[in-house]
């Protein structure tokens, strides 16, 4: 299975998009709805299911689509095919503040396990599958749920997550405790487990929850500093409609002044 080699460029700092350059005949697959712009000559084709290869007949396609539904992706993927005779560009934008990480799958052994929902785009030929988290404790308390996404192939894949992303290399036996929900992706050679925070007092009042996620090397892991759900929680908490305090914007006569006076300076 020949993978398409893709040149790319990532723009922006906190709200990024990636521009992918396609040689004549090359193609990229994108999550439905993330395309930002494309140059003329690129043919867009929406395919049912995986989009990695046109194989397997109807049932195969149905299975692929079912998998995508489970991982929280949409049923359709879009394939962007360069039909022209020159190089053409297509851009994919991240749907919320955060960073885009490019991963060369062949560098890490061909497989990447990542958080569901985090796939952005990839070279055509990368297959998107699901990886069930089979450790029950990790599935329940690990912060990533029972369903993770597995990207397989040897081309480029772009994964997106919230806040700042950190790529870490864990040496053999080296272990890292991570707040649950902050794990974005890891190599399959990495042990993903959970660990009780240690003390009842910390579990209840510490604000980190009952468990840490632990990652044990060897291998590469990617962490996010701000999971989207945490950001969403904060936004909802401070939304005036949900009873949050309004920080003094708005007109002089509006609720902003009064809210600002009563709410103090925060």
């Amino acid at each position, binding site marked *: 299975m020949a993978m398409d080699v893709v040149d790319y460029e990532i723009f922006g700092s906190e709200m990024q998009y990636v521009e992918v350059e396609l040689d004549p005949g090359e193609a990229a697959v994108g999550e439905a709805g993330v395309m930002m712009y494309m140059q003329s000559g690129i043919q867009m084709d929406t395919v049912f299911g995986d989009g990695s290869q046109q194989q397997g007949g109807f049932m195969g396609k149905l299975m692929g689509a079912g998998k995508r539904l489970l991982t929280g992706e949409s049923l359709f993927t879009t394939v962007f095919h360069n039909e022209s005779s020159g190089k053409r560009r297509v851009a994919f934008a991240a749907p919320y503040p955060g960073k885009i990480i490019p991963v060369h799958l062949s560098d890490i052994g061909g497989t990447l396990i990542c958080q569901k929902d985090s796939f952005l785009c990839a070279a055509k030929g990368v297959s998107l599958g699901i990886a069930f988290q089979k450790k029950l404790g990790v599935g329940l308390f690990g912060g990533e749920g029972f369903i993770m996404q597995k990207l397989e192939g040897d081309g480029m894949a772009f994964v997106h997550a919230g806040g700042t992303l950190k790529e870490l290399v864990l040496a*053999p036996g080296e272990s890292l405790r991570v707040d649950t929900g902050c794990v974005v992706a890891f190599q399959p050679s990495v042990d993903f487990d959970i660990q009780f925070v240690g003390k009842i007092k910390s579990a209840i009042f510490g604000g980190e929850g009952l468990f840490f996620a632990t990652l044990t090397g060897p291998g590469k892991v990617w962490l996010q500093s701000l999971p989207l759900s945490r950001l969403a929680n904060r936004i909802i908490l401070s939304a005036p409609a949900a009873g949050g305090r309004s920080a003094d914007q708005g007109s002089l006569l509006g609720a902003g002044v009064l809210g600002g006076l009563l709410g103090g300076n925060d």
Partner: protein
Amino acid sequence: MVCWAAMTEQTFEGRLFGPGLPGAGAEAVGSWDGQGRLRVVVEVTPRTELLAENPAIAAAGFNAASLRITWDGDAGAYAFVIEKDAALTACGVSAPSGIAGRILSARGARGRLERRFRFGGVLLALFLALPLILIGVFLLNSDRVADWAVKRIPHEQEARLGDLVLAQTRLRMKILDSGPAVDAVSAIGSKLTTGSLHRYRWFVADRPDVNAFAAPGGVVVVFSGLIRSAGSAEELAGVLAHEVAHAELRHSLRGMVKSLGLRALVSLLTGDASGGVFADAATRLTELRFSREAEREADDEGLRRLVKAHIDPNGMLRFYRKLASEGRPSPPPLLSTHPATGERLERLRREVAGLKQKWVPLPIDLTSLK
């Protein structure tokens, strides 16, 4: 000796992690030598060859799906991770006997994980299917459950339910409490209900339909249309006997217990405890339909009561036949709620033909009521 050499030649692919290697590991090929040492060769330039003394073996990685062989080298800790199934098998098969056991037990850890995951899945599926299973069990045993529950309902409670149904019926139609029609009905009815535990109350509804119903606790409502179409007091007695039999056998109560039980179960499982269950139970009671079996029971019991009261059961037969042969596009309500009319008629005819008793004519003249 040749065979031994061939075995030790067997190699398996994996990824080597360690000092001086890429963070994501490098593709490497491993093989066991005769002394239980692991030889790992990284083919890409610069070619590296490592010999692992006394390696530790564990199931590792995502879902413990891979095998991790770790050892301390000169420069630091190394790990050789085998992921592919074919390589795992090759590694296990070619390992010296001491190490093969450790590989087997490490792979057993993966099996346990799989089993626990599957067990969890089955538990989850059972938990999700629990409401359906409960409802299914209830439906299968609803007769037994209803019997059990009905036996525990005292007659006073049943009478109170009857009052409720009556009150609901009064809202929908005009009910006569007294008058010549009510007197006639109660005169016939009291003959049929001697010795009953229920305190029977008889009513006539001013409606043209040919219908009658028995609510729990001995409330019997006869529609005036039925009295009008009855040819004689014996015919009316036949219908009354049937309705009395329903009341005596507590059919409506059983039906209510069943539907209530189901609705209570459903609301329990769906968490909808808004109390709607009990509010319209009484309404539903008035439109209860009995099963075919309940109808047959009521026919038999009604016939027995007619015979006991020395009332001619041919009246019952005549009236049923009349209803069945009227040839309306839709059968009258009394029959439409009572399935398989022909079959029931035939049964009744046979039973009545077998009776050789003297009948006492009822001293009631229905023609004066019309």
